[in-house]
């Protein structure tokens, strides 16, 4: 199945794009999507312990499953204000 992955701030710069399509196995969790991405972009790997994630613009745990066509987002630590 296919998901849209959105990336922000430093993560966006590492991947070189704000939004990419990714093929992931059926039943994949957010963690699987991230690990596949980090395998292709090794500079992402150090963020494994500090990212947040969202599915369809709602915060979600890395253990949460993703579905075909979902918008997945990975967020580095936030710094608003």
């Amino acid at each position, binding site marked *: 199945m296919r998901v849209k992955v959105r990336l922000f701030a430093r993560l966006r710069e590492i991947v070189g794009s704000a939004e990419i399509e990714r093929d992931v196995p059926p039943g994949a969790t957010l963690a699987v999507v991230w690990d596949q991405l980090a395998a292709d972009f090794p500079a992402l790997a150090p963020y494994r312990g500090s990212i*947040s994630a969202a599915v369809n*613009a*709602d915060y979600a745990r890395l253990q949460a499953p993703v579905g075909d066509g979902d918008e997945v*987002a990975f967020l580095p630590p*936030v710094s*608003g204000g």
Partner: protein
Amino acid sequence: MAAPLSLDALTTVVVESTDGPVGGVSSFLGLVRGENLGRRVRFLEYEAYDALALKVLARIEQEARAQWPSATVGIHHRTGRVEIGEASIAIVAASAHRADAFAVCRYAIERVKQILPVWKHEHFDDGETWVEGATADPDDEAARQEARRRACA
């Protein structure tokens, strides 16, 4: 939002949307500093995950209402380029009494720092860097309690 922030406009909206009597209004403006950790900052750029940020702002307003039922809060955050001395965030809290207005204002900025999906990009004379603060987890009860503790300190 991309336009400059107006405390007056936000105050009007917040006061008019408060159900009960308003006896106190507290506000907070966060300004862009021209210096951070000893380096001269030329300007900032803010990036946001807009769709999620709007939901998180609504969540923070709802959390505040649950804790301080007589209070209403409004939060505006800039995105894009923000110059030194300009406001990056405006918060207004209105309540029947001053104590709740102050508390809600403080609670809101602490929660923004913890969970709002916004990122600050600092531009210096000789480079740039993304500021990385808190790992956002809206369900982290300890973080929420810390925001409440600071609000009531």
